[in-house]
């Protein structure tokens, strides 16, 4: 086996893994911590990609900065979606069947609307770091992967600090386990969930910018990520951010190996294999409790 090829496959996998971690962060919060099975998350990521695309093409703003600018809007969107979800399903105790169908409908409708607006052409953004790469000996670091990797790392550190150090963050970690205890602490569980869900959708804005930096985007690309993000989320142990990062890096490397040595058309099957294996062998994931 070619040594250089091996090293570069590992590097590409790790960088890809950093991106996957950012894509999964939102699901780790909503599914892992809040018990809201938001299968529409890839649709929100794609929405982030297209908004980044519009801002980048019309105003020439850097895609990552553009996505940070629209973060508040995504937070608000998340809060609204949660409010609807809460009133229509959680309050009536029907989240299992109808809540899932609701998010599936949102996923589908978003995709179709994007399809109607943008068609099936591939869209991409412009930024100085798309294209060149830094080499270190035999190792190649493509900047279009390295930049999202670094920003994603910053985002994870910030999220982890927020969740473990602030009062609201701790309340988020507690809300799905014991909402009654939160009430006794004079905290409204619904408000906490709304905030947390808003944050989870806000991460989709950044993840969307990463996605369109890494690859050109069409409306149906979101579906490819459903398997991946849930595989990572489950493998990492639901609701554990460090677990999510480890699982994402692992999946990135395995996928990169598969693509390098077997061909890229097999890569989508990897995540499903991992998902099934995890569910069959260790459903609590790597760092799950």
């Amino acid at each position, binding site marked *: 086996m070619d040594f250089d090829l091996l090293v570069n496959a590992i590097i590409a996998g790790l960088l890809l893994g950093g991106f996957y971690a950012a894509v999964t962060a939102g699901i780790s919060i909503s599914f892992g911590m809040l018990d809201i099975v938001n299968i529409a998350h890839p649709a929100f990521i794609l929405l982030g990609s297209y908004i980044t695309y519009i801002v980048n093409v019309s105003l020439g703003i850097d895609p990552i900065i553009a996505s940070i600018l629209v973060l508040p809007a995504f937070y608000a969107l998340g809060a609204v979606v949660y409010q609807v979800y809460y009133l229509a399903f959680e309050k009536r105790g029907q989240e299992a069947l109808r809540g899932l*169908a609701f998010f599936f*409908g949102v996923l589908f409708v978003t995709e179709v609307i994007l399809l109607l607006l943008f068609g099936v052409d591939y869209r991409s953004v412009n930024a100085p770091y798309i294209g060149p790469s830094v080499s270190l000996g035999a190792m190649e670091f493509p900047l279009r992967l390295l930049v999202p990797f670094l920003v994603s790392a910053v985002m994870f550190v910030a999220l982890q600090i927020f969740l473990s150090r602030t009062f609201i963050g701790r309340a988020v970690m507690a809300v799905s386990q014991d909402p009654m205890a939160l009430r006794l602490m004079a905290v409204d569980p619904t408000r906490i969930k709304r905030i947390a869900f808003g944050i989870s959708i806000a991460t989709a804005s950044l993840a969307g910018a990463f996605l369109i930096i890494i690859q050109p985007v069409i409306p149906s690309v979101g579906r490819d990520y459903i398997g991946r993000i849930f595989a990572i989320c489950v493998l990492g142990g639901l609701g554990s951010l460090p677990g999510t990062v480890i699982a994402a890096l692992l999946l990135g490397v395995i996928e990169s190996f598969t693509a390098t040595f077997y061909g890229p058309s097999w890569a989508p099957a990897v995540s499903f294999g991992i998902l099934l294996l995890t569910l069959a062998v260790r459903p609590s994931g790597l760092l799950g409790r």
Partner: protein
Amino acid sequence: MRTPFFVIIQIAVGLALYLLFATYGNDYWFYAGYTVLQYIVLATAWNILGGYCGYVNFGSAAFFALGAYSSVFFYNIGQSLDELFSESTAALLSHIFPIPVPILILIGGAVAGLVGLGTGYLTLRLRGVFFAIATLALAVVIETLVVNWQFVGGSRGAYVIPAAEIPVFGPYIQYLFALMIVLVIVALTCARLIERSRLGYGFATIRDDELAAEACGVPTLRLKLIATVLSGALMGMAGAPFPFFIGYVEPGSAFNLSYAVNSIAMPMIGGTTSWVGPLIGAILLGTLQQLATVTISSVVNLLIVGLLLIGFVIVAPNGIVGLWQDWVGKKSKRFGS
């Protein structure tokens, strides 16, 4: 109504429909009718697991495509007997091939049922959500397998050319239409039988409170597996004649997300508690889509289906059947606070 009587009524309605189309309609009626009938089977199949057990299957397209591609597989074997086998075996096999469509339907059902069993066995022991996620990913993976499998056409797709005419029925589409009517009868009878049997009550306990059911001695895993296999097999059966209907199958059309969306939306809009719901939902949405596809556009009609799904799950959780029951006031529907 006794079951034999129910079947006779269905046969009578099916026959009347067929004769009506054959006398007054043209080929387009049969094509459009076939699509609607196919959706009735898919919606009813989905409802056996989704409506009765409360387990959401997002992978209808995968099960459907499994049926379609098992047909393509056997069709391709029949086309290239001489290359695949020695002369004597080929001569022997040429008595069997081409396999008639009804047999292919059974094969497609068996394949899809087996895949349902495997997926279910790995994921149904856990929380219901995991099964839903697994089915979502299943569609992507089976599509990947098919794209990489050159024998069934890979990403290029495969041509399946049916005979232009067939004895008794005339045009091939009329034959497929008749087969689909039979499938609808099988699916509806199945669903109605389940609803009124021990099995159905078992399913209902799982839907309402799985933990309590388990504690009362209901074999929940076995029941869930039965529901998954039945539902998957019916979806596979609905997919098996698809290559002959459309003539050219490629992964994009066989795994189309609209199958997954429609097979969820139709029972949800019709009502999930009885066999009537998916039937009403499928007839309404299926016909609406046939009209919208020819008059507006096929993308817009998908948007309509998605919005209807969201609207109904929020506003009318029990679908049209639920609205009707509320309106008539026969049954007072109450939900846990």
